[in-house]
C-alpha cells in the first residue's frame, strides 16, 4: 500500500477514542504479544479497574494473566518483584496516586535498584501504573501529584502521556522496557478524546523524548501530563496579547530530554515550567535549573514556574484555586517581559 493510501485508510478508520481506551488497548496488545506480561492490582479483574482501563482483560486472558490481588500495595509491587525475578513482565496498577505510598519501600529499596545491586544480572522489567493528579473532584488522597518522589529515585524511568496516541505508545514502550517504569496516568485526561485508529495504533518515540506540541517564537512553556492541554489553551489565548508561545510536552521526566528543551528555549529565549505538583522541591525547580545551566546566555528573563501551591492537595471544592490554569500561566508569561520591568 502506498503511503498516501495507508494514510487515507488510517484516517478513514480513525474515530474518537479516550485515553483510558488507548491505555486498555496497550495492555491488551502487550498481553497478546508477550506471554511474560501479567497485569495485577486491586479491582483490575471483574470490575475492569475503577477507571475501566483493564476492562475485559481477565475475560480475554484469564485470571492468571490479569489478576485481582488482595488490597495491599506493598504486596502487589513486592510480589511483582518476585515475578520479574522469575522472568515475567508485571504491569501493576496502584489505583490512585496516594495509594501508592505503602509500596514506596518496595519501589525505592528494590524495584529501582535491583539491576544496580546485582551489577546488571537481574534487571526488573516492571511497569507501575499510577493514576495521578487532580481536577476530577476526588476526595482526600485521590489527587496527589507525586512525580517528584519518583524523579528523585535513580533506577526508575518516569513517564506521563498527555495525548491518546502517547498513552498507547508510551505504555507499550514502558512494558517493553527492561527497566522499571513509573507510568503516571493523568486522571483528568482519562476521558479526553482524540481521533485515533484502534486498528493501527502507532508506536511513539522511545522513552526519553520530549515533543513540541505547538511551535512559537516568544517563549516556551515546558510542561507534561495533565497540564499540556492547559498550556495549549493558554498559548491560544496568548495570541491576543501578542505572544507566540511554544509548548513542549516533556512526556518523560526521567530520562530528561535536555536536547529538545534546550533547543526550544534557545529559540525563544524565555521559559515557563508548568505543572500541578507543588513548586518547592518540585519537578519545576530541577527543570528550571537544567534550562538555566544550558541556556543562560540565550535567556532574556529568569525561568519561571507555574505550579500548584505548596500545600497538601486541597478538597475538591477548592481545587480550582490550586491547579495552574490559563490565567496563571498568562500572568507568568507577562512577567517574562523582564527587560521592560527591570
Amino acid at each position, binding site marked *: 500500500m502506498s503511503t498516501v493510501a495507508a494514510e487515507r485508510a488510517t484516517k478513514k478508520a480513525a474515530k474518537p477514542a479516550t485515553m483510558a481506551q488507548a491505555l486498555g488497548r496497550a495492555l491488551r496488545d502487550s498481553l497478546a504479544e508477550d506471554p511474560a506480561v501479567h497485569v495485577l492490582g486491586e479491582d483490575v479483574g471483574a470490575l475492569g479497574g475503577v477507571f475501566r482501563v483493564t476492562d475485559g482483560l481477565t475475560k480475554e486472558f484469564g485470571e492468571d494473566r490479569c489478576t485481582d490481588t488482595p488490597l*495491599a500495595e506493598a504486596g502487589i509491587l513486592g510480589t511483582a*518483584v518476585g515475578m520479574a*525475578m522469575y522472568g515475567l513482565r508485571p504491569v501493576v496498577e496502584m489505583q490512585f496516586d496516594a495509594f501508592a505510598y505503602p509500596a514506596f519501600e518496595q519501589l525505592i529499596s528494590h524495584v529501582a535498584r535491583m539491576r544496580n545491586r546485582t551489577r546488571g544480572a537481574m534487571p526488573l522489567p516492571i511497569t507501575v501504573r499510577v493514576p495521578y493528579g487532580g481536577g476530577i473532584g476526588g476526595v482526600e488522597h485521590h489527587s496527589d501529584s507525586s512525580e517528584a518522589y519518583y524523579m528523585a529515585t535513580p533506577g526508575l524511568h518516569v513517564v506521563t502521556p498527555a495525548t491518546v496516541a502517547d498513552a498507547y505508545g508510551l505504555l507499550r514502550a514502558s512494558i517493553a522496557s527492561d527497566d522499571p517504569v513509573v507510568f503516571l496516568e493523568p486522571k483528568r485526561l482519562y476521558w479526553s478524546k482524540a481521533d485515533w485508529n484502534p486498528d493501527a495504533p502507532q508506536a511513539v518515540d522511545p522513552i526519553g523524548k520530549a515533543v513540541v506540541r505547538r511551535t512559537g517564537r516568544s517563549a516556551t512553556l515546558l510542561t507534561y501530563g495533565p497540564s499540556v492541554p492547559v498550556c495549549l489553551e493558554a498559548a491560544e489565548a496568548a495570541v491576543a496579547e501578542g505572544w507566540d508561545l511554544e509548548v513542549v510536552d516533556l512526556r518523560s521526566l526521567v*530520562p530528561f530530554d535536555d536536547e529538545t528543551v534546550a533547543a526550544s528555549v534557545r529559540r525563544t529565549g524565555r521559559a515557563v515550567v508548568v505543572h500541578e505538583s507543588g513548586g518547592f522541591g518540585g519537578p519545576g525547580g530541577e527543570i528550571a535549573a537544567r534550562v538555566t545551566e544550558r541556556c543562560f546566555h540565550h535567556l532574556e528573563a529568569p525561568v519561571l514556574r507555574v505550579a500548584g501551591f505548596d500545600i497538601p492537595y486541597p478538597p475538591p471544592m477548592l481545587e480550582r484555586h490550586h491547579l495552574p490554569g490559563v490565567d496563571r500561566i498568562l500572568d507568568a508569561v507577562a512577567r517574562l517581559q523582564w527587560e521592560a520591568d527591570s
Partner: protein
Amino acid sequence: MTVMEQRGVYRPTPPPAWQLRTDPAPLLPDAEPYRVLGTEAAGKADEELLGRLYAQLVLGRRYNTQATALTKQGRLAVYPSSTGQEACEVAAALVLQERDWLFPSYRDTLAAVARGLDPVQALTLLRGDWHTGYDPREHRIAPLCTPLATQLPHAVGLAHAARLKGDDVVALAMVGDGGTSEGDFHEALNFAAVWQAPVVFLVQNNGFAISVPLDKQTAAPSLAHKAVGYGMPGRLVDGNDAAAVHEVLSDAVSRARAGGGPTLVEAVTYRMEAHTNADDATRYRGDTEVEAWRAHDPILLLERELTERGLLDEDRRRAARDDAEAMAADLRERMNQDPELNPMDLFSHVYAEQTTQLREQAAQLRAELEASDADDADDADGEENAR
C-alpha cells in the same frame, strides 16, 4: 406487618459468609517446639543425613568465627553473626532442590554458603564491595536483603510465577523475629495463602531484634500462631535441633511442591553473639541466659546424639574440623586480597542504557580519574627528581 411488629419473632438466617472458611485447629502449631534429638524420634532419623548436618554445622560455626575475625581486621565492614543459629541456616539450604530458590536476610550468608555459594561472593555486600557478589539466577539465591521482611513478597511472587509457568519450584524465605512485625511480613503471608503459592516462610526467632526482646515485639502465643490468621499451617520447631528443623522444613517444602500451599515455620533459637560486631549485647541481656543457651548449642546437641548412636568417632570429628579449617584458611587468604573496583562501574548498571545525564556524569568522573592519575605520575616524577 411493620418491622416493629416483627420484633421478637424475627429470626434472621445467617448468610453463608458467617461460617468459618477453614477449621483453624489443623493449622495451629504444637504447644511445644518440635524436637528430634534426644527423643525417640531420633532413632528414626537418617544416619547419612545426620552426618551431613554435623559436617555442615561444624563448617558453619567456623565460617561464623572467621567472618567475625575478619571484621576485627577491617576486612568486612560489618558481620551479623549466625553463631548459635547454624542449625536453621544449614537445614534451610539442605532441604532445597537445585531448582528451588532461597531468599535470605542479611544474617543468612551461611545459608547461602551451605547452598553452595562461594563464601567470598556471599560476603561481597558485607565487605563493602558492591552489593551482591553473585548472579541470583545462576545460584537461585536472591540478594541478601537488608530491609526487614521486604524479600518475603519477592519469594511469594517468584513462587507464584514459577507455578504459572508450570515449573516445579519452591521458594524458601528467611526472616527474623523482628521482621514479623513489619507490614511486608503480613502482606507476603496473606498473598501466599490466597494464591496458594509454593513458599515456605522460616522465622528464626533468635530472641532479639537488635536489643528488643520478643515479649516487646509480639503478644502472640508464638510466632507460628500467626499462620492461622492467614489460613496456612504454623509449625514450631526447636531451632537448635538440626534434625528437627530439617524434618519440619522438608515437610513444608514437600507440601508446597505438591500444591499444598505455604507454611510458616518458627524455629526457636538464640543469637549467641551481638546483633553485629558493632552492637554491645551486655546492655540488654545477662550472662545466665546466654549460658543456658550455650548448653543447648546446636553442635553439642547433634554430637551427643551421634556419639550415643556410635556414629561419631575421633576420625570423623577431626575430618569435620579439618574441612572447616581449610575453608577458613581459604576464606582468610582470599579476603585479605584487596578487591579491584572500577569506579566507572558506578554508572554501568543504573539503567539498561545510560541516560544522557549519566553519560555526562560518567565523563566527569573519568576526567577526575585521569587528572588524579596524572597527579600521581607527577608526584612519582617529583620524588624521582628529589633523589
